[in-house]
Each structure stands twice: as C-alpha cells, then as structure tokens.
C-alpha cells in the first residue's frame, strides 16, 4: 500500500516538475507547480506529518501559486515563451551537466556515504504518531523555538511592508531612468520633470 502511494505521488511530483520546466505558458507552469506541491503534501501524509501536509496545501497551492497567477494576470505576461531559441550558446547542455553534477553530489551525500541518517534524536522533541502531530509541533514551536517564531513574525512584517513599498505607484509622471537623468542634469539639477502632484498619470494611483 505504502509503495503504491509513494509511486503514484513520485510520478505526480516529478511530472509536475517536468511540466514547470517545459511549459511554454507561465499559467500552465503554475498549474503544474500545484500538481507537484500536492504530491509532496500526500508524501507528508505518508510520513505522518499531518499538520505540514495541510499547511503545504494551504500555503503553496492556496497562497503562493494564487499569488503567481495574480501577478501573471496583472502584468499580462501570459504570452507563450518560445523555447526553441537558445539565447546563450551552450546554455542548455551546460545546465544539464550542472544538473547531473548536483544530482550526483546530493545523492552521494544523502545515500552512498552512510547507509541512512545517523545521529541521535533530540531528547525533548520525539516524534509522536499522526494523531497528535499538530499538538506536539505546536508545543515544540512555542517552547524550544519561540525566539525563531518571533523572528518569523518580524520577517513577515518586513516582507509585507517591503512588498507594499516596492509595488507602490509614485504620483506624478514616471521618473526618468538614471541615464536620462544624468544626461539632462548639467543645466538644472533639480528640475528633472514637470513634477505634477497628480495629473496625466493614466491608470496610476488606484492599485
């Protein structure tokens, strides 16, 4: 039974990954990513990490991929990539060689050197069964790792503020590129544009 579930999930994960790799349309790539992520979530269930399986579906499929799709739709970049052109000569053979190298080193490090994981489990965080996985994870997170949890709160706040600052539309006309600004600088350093408060900005200010 386990073998069957693992095989199906492995096929699902890897075919999804190949889909992301080979899809010409970014929307299709995002949907293949969902497939791959779902496969990983089922594998988490097989490993009795029930809480993480749920979080994986909610965060990846529910939040991250939706964010990708929103950006694709918002920017209108869902045009089809032409995968036949190879912009840098030798890029793909080199990528395959590098990929083979990564695969070889990771497999060697993970499998060949030792016959499996070594070391002793920590005394204060034994793995429970699937039923109380969420409870145990919560207990460990808010006792041993409470400082890291606080740091993630800070990290998420910084990320949200950063995203708002990055995608904010500036009022007034678009500022010139630095090259143009330097070219027009010598006569009047400060007046780089009409500097209207609000005016011919078009769709600006309503995002």
């Amino acid at each position, binding site marked *: 039974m386990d073998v069957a579930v693992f095989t199906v999930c492995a096929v699902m994960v890897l075919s999804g990954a190949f889909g992301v790799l080979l899809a010409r349309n970014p929307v299709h790539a995002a949907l293949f990513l969902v497939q791959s992520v779902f496969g990983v979530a089922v594998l988490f269930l097989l*490993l009795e990490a029930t809480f993480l399986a749920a979080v994986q579906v909610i965060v990846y499929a529910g939040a991250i991929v939706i964010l990708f799709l929103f950006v694709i739709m918002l920017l209108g970049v869902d045009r089809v990539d032409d995968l036949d052109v190879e912009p840098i000569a030798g890029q793909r053979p080199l990528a395959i060689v590098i990929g083979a190298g990564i695969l070889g080193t990771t497999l060697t490090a993970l499998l060949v050197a030792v016959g499996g994981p070594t070391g002793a489990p920590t005394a204060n965080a034994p793995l429970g069964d699937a039923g109380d996985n969420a409870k145990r994870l919560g207990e460990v997170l808010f006792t041993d790792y409470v400082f890291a949890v606080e740091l993630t709160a800070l990290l998420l706040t910084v990320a949200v503020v950063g995203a708002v600052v990055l995608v904010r539309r500036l009022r007034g006309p678009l500022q010139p590129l630095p090259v143009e600004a330097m070219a027009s600088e010598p006569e009047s350093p400060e007046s780089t544009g009409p500097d209207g408060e609000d005016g011919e900005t078009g769709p600006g200010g309503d995002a």
Partner: protein
Amino acid sequence: MEVTVAWYLTLGAVLFTLGAVGLLVRRNPLVMFMCVELMLNAVNLTFVSLGDALGDLSGQVSVFFVLVVAAAEVVVGLGIIVAIMRRRAGATADDLSVLRG
C-alpha cells in the same frame, strides 16, 4: 517491499535537480521563481523524511520555518518582478545584459 527513507531522499534529490536545471534554463522570471519553489519543496521533503527516520520532530519544525521564509520570499520577489515589469514589459532574465556599460 517497504518504503524506506532512501526512496524519499532520492525523490528529493531528483526534484531539487529539476528545479535547479529549470532555474538555469528558463528565462521568464516568474517561471524561474516557480523553479525555486520546486527546490524548496525538495528540501522540505528531505527534512521531513530524515526527521521521520530519526524519530525527531525537529525536521518538521525546520519545514515550518522554510514555509514561512518561502512565503516572505515570494511576496518580496513578486513585488520586485511587478516593479520591473511595469518599467520594462516582457523583461526576461537575459535583459541583464543591458547593464553592460
């Protein structure tokens, strides 16, 4: 036959490699980002399977933090991509060559 930890580790390694190759090959910055997500997923799978093999919850705790960092990274990265795409519609990773003086 039984599913051992080596199976999961092999699957994680292959998935990581696919993500890395995609990051190197694709030019659309959004698809490159998706390949980074694939690599993060591979590492998550490795963490959970090793934690399961050792009977330790710390692997799952690590995955929890990886998920948080992935979410923050996607938010900031997509913000940067949106800011770039507004200035240069249809920008690809190869447009870095514009920076050559």
